[in-house]
């Protein structure tokens, strides 16, 4: 049985879980409503107490929506972060903290780190299984945007070839990310450093002209400005990786003796398997550290997973409290309709019919609240996504997945079954007392 389950496609598994959650409610509905048509009576109750009903539905929608929004947002952030690392199959740096280097290379949060030599760069770039070996040179910024030195091949790789304008041909030309504060044709002088401590006068007289603009990638690199790595070295008074006789030559091969160093090299291998062989070759004690940003992120998710479990637990506890409130609310609502139900019983309506009317009325409110909760959850996640995207440049997309649908269905199933309790209590109350209510 377990074998059959695991062989099913994930979509079918999720669909079956949903059916399993909803099935008890459908079975109960079939049992209670068999042979009855309480629709008009329920519609009348909904109209008669529309404000109380609306408040009840809104409370359910908000409480369910908060739980759903939280889960959807967490997943959106996880997917967005993973997407940001898509182009960073393998990163080679000097030995140190993988997390620090992942934050620097993928999320553009640079730190002071040791540099890799030209010999190491040439060895990586010349490896038979390496398609792109892009050095990254951090340190400068312009109006809050990181200015990063690299090689021309990295630009079409990063943007999947989607860009306006052209690639640089001289050292002082630049290519802007989609969200960078400069456009094609504009010029800028980078500041030395980042943030409040950036020195705007350090590179006085150095002017870069933007000749290309990459399409939006949904990563922090959208806000970056890319320039030839040779220009970064030159403006810092260093050799530019080439002999003087090479003139304004840009890009590899570099002369190892004239290569000032790079904190990180982004490596794109010719095949997935080659990444592991390359990692094996470039993980060297006291010389180089090769790591997969995807693995670092996954390990981070592992830590976040505990947080996610805590959030899920909080969400479940909240839903339990909401379910208890719903039970209380339904009891109050049944008091509201006490007179109507007493009249039905006085007219000789069967006990099951009265229970069916009250239960269906409660479940209708629960269904409306739960569907509203899905909408509120989606809206809350969408709003949070925009806030997170604008603050981090990581494209976070809110979407409702099976987890949210399962949470909503479980809530609906539990509360629907619980709402049988106040419905069953109605026929036990004296008819005369109900008629006087």
């Amino acid at each position, binding site marked *: 049985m377990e074998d059959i389950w695991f062989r099913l496609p994930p979509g079918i598994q999720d669909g079956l879980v949903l059916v399993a959650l909803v099935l008890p409610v459908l079975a109960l509905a079939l049992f209670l409503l068999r042979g009855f048509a309480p629709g008009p009576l329920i519609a009348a109750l909904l109209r008669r107490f529309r404000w109380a009903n609306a408040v009840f539905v809104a409370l359910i929608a908000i409480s369910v929506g908060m739980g759903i929004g939280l889960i959807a947002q967490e*997943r959106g952030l996880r997917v967005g972060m993973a997407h940001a690392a898509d182009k960073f199959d393998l990163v080679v740096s000097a030995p140190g903290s993988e997390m620090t280097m992942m934050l620097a290379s993928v999320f553009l949060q640079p730190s002071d780190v040791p540099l890799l030599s030209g010999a190491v760069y040439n060895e990586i770039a010349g490896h038979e299984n390496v398609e792109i070996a892009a050095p990254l040179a951090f340190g400068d910024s312009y109006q809050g945007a990181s200015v990063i030195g690299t090689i021309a091949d990295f630009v079409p790789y990063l943007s999947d070839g989607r860009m306006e304008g052209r690639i640089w041909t001289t050292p002082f030309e630049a290519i802007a990310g989609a969200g960078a504060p400069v456009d094609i044709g504009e010029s800028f002088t980078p500041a030395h450093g980042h943030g409040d401590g950036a020195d705007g006068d350090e590179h006085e007289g150095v002017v870069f002209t933007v000749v290309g603009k990459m399409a939006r990638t949904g990563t922090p690199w959208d806000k970056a400005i890319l320039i030839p790595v040779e220009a970064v070295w030159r403006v810092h008074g260093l050799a530019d990786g080439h002999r003087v006789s090479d003139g304004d030559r840009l890009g590899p091969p570099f002369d190892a003796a004239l290569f000032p160093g790079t904190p990180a090299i982004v490596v794109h291998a010719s095949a997935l398997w080659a990444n592991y062989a390359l990692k094996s070759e470039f993980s060297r004690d006291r010389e180089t550290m090769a790591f997969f940003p995807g693995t670092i992120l996954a*390990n981070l998710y592992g830590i976040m997973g505990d947080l996610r479990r805590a959030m899920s637990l909080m969400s479940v506890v909240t839903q339990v409290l909401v379910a208890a409130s719903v039970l209380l609310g339904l009891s109050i609502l049944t008091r509201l309709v006490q007179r109507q139900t007493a009249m039905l019983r006085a007219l000789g309506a069967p006990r099951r019919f009265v229970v069916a009317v009250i239960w269906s009325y409660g479940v209708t409110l629960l269904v409306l609240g739960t569907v509203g909760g899905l909408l509120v959850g989606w809206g809350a996640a969408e709003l949070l996504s925009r806030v997170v995207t604008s603050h981090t440049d990581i494209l976070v997309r809110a979407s409702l997945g099976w987890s949210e649908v399962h949470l909503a269905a479980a809530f609906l199933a539990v509360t629907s079954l619980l709402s049988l309790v106040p419905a069953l209590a109605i026929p036990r109350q004296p008819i005369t007392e109900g008629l006087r209510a």
Partner: protein
Amino acid sequence: MTRFFLALGALLFTASPLLAADPDHGHDHNADGEVSHVFEQAGLHVVHPWTRATSGRDALIFMDLENEGDAPITLLGAHAHWAESAEIVGFALENGEERYLPLPSIPVAPGHDLVLRPKEVALRLSGLSEALVKGQHLDLELQTSLGELEIDVMVEAADATNHGHAGHSH
């Protein structure tokens, strides 16, 4: 009732050798009588093979492969009598979800290590014939360009992140 206790006593007596049997039975032991954690073949050192306890269909096997020889050694795959199939897999994040994708062979350059570890690269054994229990030792036939090498895989806890002896020098 007396006969019942006599029968129970006899059963326990006859079963005692089975109950006392070492779970490491049938595995290589070093000079100190401990189960080996290192396996060698013509310059290839396989260190700390391990997996996680599971009752599922698949198990990921991890280990360090050290090429101490002068020529490249290629990891080709594995075979185990307790699983239907085995393949090399590489970790990938697809839309934030963790996946292990099948890989062809992986070469290990001379003087370098290939570390099979969680969320990087592993051997995936599918169709397990039995649940894997913590403390158990499993036979595995590692297939490389050097030929086949019998190794012993230690079953660690279901949530383990490395071999129990990780960090020890062997």
